[in-house]
């Protein structure tokens, strides 16, 4: 009986751990995780800049397909707002962690979307400096 209970508690503990694992990181921790890479890319790296991130977020660029692209095009001019997918109109939940607590809490998810969206908007990968500036900007939005 005692053993069974202990086993059940252990399983519960593991299950809870797995559930909580989804929110393993804070946005600040994810932001900081880009510092070593940023230093590697540029030995003169000092810090991430919310204002540079804001410019990056709004910067409009003409894609080789002729379409005008920007982060804001889908995520809207205010990252506290929900956006929508240009083609399918599926809702995109707000990017600002002040509004959406799930944002920037899962490093694999963050990298997945940087990989996709940097290619779609810039037609190249983003630098660690750009990623850090972008997150720093979103964290500054209150």
């Amino acid at each position, binding site marked *: 009986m005692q053993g069974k209970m202990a086993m059940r508690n252990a399983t519960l503990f593991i299950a809870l751990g797995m559930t909580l694992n989804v929110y393993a990181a804070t946005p600040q921790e994810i932001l900081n995780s880009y510092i070593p890479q940023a230093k590697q890319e540029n030995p003169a790296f000092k810090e991430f800049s919310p204002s540079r991130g804001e410019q990056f977020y709004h910067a409009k660029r003409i894609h080789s397909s002729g379409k005008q692209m920007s982060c804001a095009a889908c995520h809207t001019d205010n990252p506290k707002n929900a956006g929508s997918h240009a083609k399918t109109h599926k809702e995109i939940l707000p990017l600002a962690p002040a509004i959406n607590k799930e944002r920037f809490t899962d490093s694999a998810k963050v990298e997945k979307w940087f990989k*996709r969206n940097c*290619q779609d908007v810039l037609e190249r990968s983003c630098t660690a400096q750009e990623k850090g500036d972008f997150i720093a900007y979103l964290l500054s939005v209150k």
Partner: protein
Amino acid sequence: MKRLNALFLWSLIVALSAPTLVHAEENENEGQSLPRVANANWKTECASCHTLYHPGLLPERSWRKLMSGLDKHFGENASLDPPSQQEITDFLVKHSAGAGSNYAKSVPASTTPLRMTETAWFKRQHREVRADVWKRPKVGSPSNCMACHKGAEQGDFSEHAVAIPR
């Protein structure tokens, strides 16, 4: 009391994380429901940007082709990490339109459609839908299944459940 709470929490976790609930109710009748299928990764990854399309809407070769070109997915980068890509491909293939189904039979063996809206089966099923209906704001395009088939993501395309928005 504590033990009861733990037990309750545990059952809740089990209920919420039940990974697969498969009702293998094959129905070959046109316009009828596809079997209920589930895979957490498929649901998360494939429905981030669009309707969660049922695996039974395309034949195996179509899913394989689609899943091997995710970096250029209808003009967008939808790339996945290799383990997720493998898991979702396996799931889609397992539940793809079977060779004997009317739907799969409507797709010529020489073609590998990536858009289910381009298949003969889709066109025949929707022949009564006028061009202006597709363009209604609440519909938008033929790829927006959910506009008229509320249960599309669960594989329910039954005719009596169709409600076309005004």
